[in-house]
């Protein structure tokens, strides 16, 4: 990631990574508001996200970003203060502004020229909301200047708690002077805290540096000396801290012992709480936080920090621009480690080697003639189990929720619906479904295309919808779910469905199929995936360039996935994409052809047959079919198709695999032998060097040899001189 050793570049890089998260939070918040599920906290989150981006951008001198974020924030502030009501129109602009903000972040990261015109248009739209609500951005413009100091402070002094806050007088407009707050902090270390080398005394000392601290030690749980176990902590402390720093500052002192202690920070009520006595009636520290909370209502102490404290914001910007979530909900934050993808790749590769090594070891042990009950063999079994566990865990590291992808799609829907002037709502479900990172990355383009298609072609115009008795607003459902070891992503619209007569006519007009073709509904739907097909009568600039669905299908297939459609006239169309969970492993059938070992994706194999005399019929020279029950399936001699040997003429005794094609036809592959069924690790082939037709990837077998993983559809289409629809339609006549 790092370009050089410039520490600033590293910080800058992490700033942009954090911005990704902030933008995601912003989208989430706006979505909640759009769904009508927003509460006060939602707008706070939205505001803070924009605010933090602005703060960070200021520190890096990204003027354009600061400028836009600031004005956006000003409007959001009005919403937060309750002076501006959020309506549909406002939300639309907010969404656009959020999109633009993410554009600006990307542009700033790449140092590209800023799209000033768009910025101005959006700013005007944003400012329009300020028009009748009072405060004009003019005065607020100046307080941008306090921003540049924001982030640098946080980064210069890592969270050891000794960081002094910058002089609050430096914050011009909202300066209320330092406010002293009294916190009551109870801190009870657990055994793990000492195991990890932390020391309560240091933490308490750090607390003391934040202000005036009164520390009381609770030794009531100390057992008699003869029962004392030195490795179990018995002490807890209560600190009454009078300080002018933010709560997050206090939390950050305990950052490294999070989860290793029971920590409770309470702000004492203001102003009357300022001089509270050190709470003699407070019950001794309870074993769990939950129990502790139950006792709270009886005490006069406010548990949550007063949300309306006006000094909150400028300070939180300075203290914690990078961790807005923690400032409010320190316990809710899941601990996450950011790891360079390269390192994970290396780990995945190493585990791959481990798996191969283990397979080699098992093979040689089996050949050594050891008793299956010997220690070595049972140890090996354990080793196999562990290897598999490690492999699964490593694969899980690469898994990511599809949420980020879906969020991008909601933007696509917004833009696409605006372009074709349709009112469209995107409903997403299963955002937490986890898929391999690579799959997610490579899914973005096809999904974008399909979403655009759904908006442009799938949904009718408002008038047509109303005439059909549907709500004016169209709906696109985007869902993800795990189904039997695969991930299924569905894009469903509630539009008119595929207009099959029109599709058929178009295909005939374009010469894609013979005019007298008699196709089933499924076959007509599949015409959409043909190269050079576009149903839009008028080609809009949004979609309909005719490069659409076939490209989508190709990219899905490249991911080892399949795409299918279902469509009900008048009720809508659903595209469903079924993908493997990971691109790293594959359930394969290990086969032998002309003394070469090859692997075939197991999910494609429907049936295996051993050929009897008379099973194979010649249709014309070089083209044979296999009789499977009452139907005929085209036969492909794999050894010849791969150029390993000349075509066979005697098929008797050979093994045939029935393969399912994407268009629901079947094909039969002639092979010599089936060796095994097992999970294999997919190793990419460097295609810049040589692109082998019919080969998808490679894997390493237990004996250390490389076996190629076949792509049967590629073999079949290269084996047929004239692929394309003539093939499909002729096959359509063959009962499969």
């Amino acid at each position, binding site marked *: 990631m790092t370009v050089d050793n410039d520490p600033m570049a590293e910080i800058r890089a992490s700033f942009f990574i954090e911005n990704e998260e902030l933008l995601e939070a912003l989208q989430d918040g706006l979505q909640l508001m759009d769904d009508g599920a927003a509460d006060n906290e939602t707008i706070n989150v939205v505001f803070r996200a924009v605010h933090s981006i602005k703060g960070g951008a200021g520190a890096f001198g990204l003027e354009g970003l600061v400028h836009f974020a600031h004005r956006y924030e000003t409007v959001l502030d009005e919403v937060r203060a309750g002076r501006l009501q959020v309506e549909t129109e406002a939300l639309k602009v907010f969404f656009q502004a959020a999109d633009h903000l993410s554009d600006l972040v990307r542009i700033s990261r790449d140092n590209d020229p800023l799209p000033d015109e768009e910025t101005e248009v959006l700013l005007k739209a944003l400012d329009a909301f300020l028009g009748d609500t009072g405060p004009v951005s003019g005065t607020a413009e100046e307080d941008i200047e306090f921003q540049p100091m924001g982030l640098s402070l946080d980064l210069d002094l890592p969270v050891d708690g000794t960081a002094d806050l910058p002089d609050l007088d430096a914050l011009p407009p909202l300066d209320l002077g330092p406010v002293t707050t009294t916190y009551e902090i109870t801190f009870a270390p657990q055994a793990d805290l000492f195991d990890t080398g932390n020391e309560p005394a240091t933490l308490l000392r750090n607390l003391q540096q934040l202000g005036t601290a009164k520390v009381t030690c609770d030794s009531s749980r100390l057992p008699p000396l003869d029962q004392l176990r030195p490795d179990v902590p018995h002490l807890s402390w209560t600190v009454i801290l009078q300080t002018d720093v933010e709560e997050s500052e206090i939390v950050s002192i305990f950052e490294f012992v999070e989860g290793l202690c029971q920590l409770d920070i309470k702000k004492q009520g203001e102003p009357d709480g300022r001089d509270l006595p050190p709470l003699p009636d407070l019950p001794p520290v309870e074993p769990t936080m939950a129990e502790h909370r139950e006792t709270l209502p009886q005490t006069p102490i406010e548990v949550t920090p007063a949300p309306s404290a006006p000094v909150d914001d400028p300070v939180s910007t300075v203290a914690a621009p990078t961790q807005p979530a923690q400032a409010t909900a320190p316990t809710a934050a899941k601990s996450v480690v950011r790891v360079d993808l390269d390192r994970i790749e290396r780990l995945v590769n190493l585990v791959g*080697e481990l798996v191969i090594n283990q397979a080699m070891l098992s093979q040689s042990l089996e050949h050594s003639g050891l008793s299956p009950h010997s220690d070595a063999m049972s140890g090996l079994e354990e080793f196999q189990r562990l290897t598999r566990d490690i492999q699964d865990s490593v694969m899980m590291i690469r898994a990511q929720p599809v949420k980020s992808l879906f969020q991008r799609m909601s933007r696509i829907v917004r833009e696409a619906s605006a372009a074709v002037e349709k009112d469209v709502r995107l409903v997403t479900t299963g955002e937490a479904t986890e898929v391999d990172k690579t799959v997610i990355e490579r899914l973005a383009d096809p999904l974008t295309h399909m979403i655009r298609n759904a908006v442009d072609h799938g949904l009718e115009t408002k008038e047509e919808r109303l005439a059909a008795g549907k709500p004016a607003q169209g709906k696109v459902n985007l869902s993800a779910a795990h189904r039997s070891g695969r991930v299924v992503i569905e894009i469903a619209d509630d539009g008119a469905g595929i207009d099959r007569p029109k599709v058929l006519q178009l295909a005939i007009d374009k010469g894609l199929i013979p005019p007298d073709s008699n196709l089933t509904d499924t076959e007509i739907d599949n015409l959409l995936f043909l190269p050079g097909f576009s149903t839009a009568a008028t080609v809009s600039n949004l979609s309909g360039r005719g490069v659409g669905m076939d490209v989508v299908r190709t990219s899905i297939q490249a991911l080892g996935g399949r795409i299918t459609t279902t469509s009900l006239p008048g009720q809508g169309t659903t595209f469903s994409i079924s993908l493997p969970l990971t691109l790293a492993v594959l359930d394969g059938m290990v086969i032998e052809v002309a003394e070469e070992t090859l692997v075939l994706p197991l999910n494609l194999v429907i049936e295996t047959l051993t050929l009897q005399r008379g099973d194979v019929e010649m249709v014309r020279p070089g083209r044979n079919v296999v009789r499977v029950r009452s139907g005929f399936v085209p036969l492909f001699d794999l050894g010849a198709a*791969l150029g*390993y040997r000349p075509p066979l003429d005697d098929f008797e005794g050979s093994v045939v695999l029935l393969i399912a094609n994407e268009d629901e036809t079947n094909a039969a592959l002639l092979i010599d032998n089936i060796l095994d069924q097992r999970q294999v690790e997919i190793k990419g082939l460097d295609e810049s*060097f*040589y692109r082998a037709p019919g080969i998808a990837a*490679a894997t*390493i077998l237990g004996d250390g*040899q*490389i076996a190629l993983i076949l792509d049967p559809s590629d073999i079949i289409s290269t084996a047929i001189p004239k692929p394309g629809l003539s093939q499909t339609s002729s096959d359509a006549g063959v009962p499969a």
Partner: protein
Amino acid sequence: MTDTQSPQSIELLTFQLADQEYSLDIMSVREIRGWTRATPLPHAPKFMKGVINLRGTVLPVMDLAQRLGLAAREQNDRNVIIVVKHEETMTGLLVDAVSDIIALTSDDLQPPPELSSGTANGVVNALTLIDDRMIRVLDLAATINDTECAAA
């Protein structure tokens, strides 16, 4: 590399190829491995031996003699694969035998006289004399990258 004013010191790995001596800049050599059977790639050009397992990664291997249009010869135990890295891509080059590492300066290299024909044209970018033996210095980029044309 050869057009600098002050002579640069260069180290070359020399190897045998159909009774001729060739060499490569040692900086591009990652390792040298004994010959293992390669898994052939379907419909690949003749000089592509296939792919081998290099500690868990798939390494394409080309027969350098065939790549350069030299006479085919018997496979024997002394055959080795030189693993080279060129612009992030690792490739294995099958050669007859590795001979030596020689150190010389860029002054010792002379441009090849006009090679108007032959597959090796453009692949050998310099010549040098060591103990009265002529050693050809291979241009690795050309050797690896021009395979597209050679394959066609």
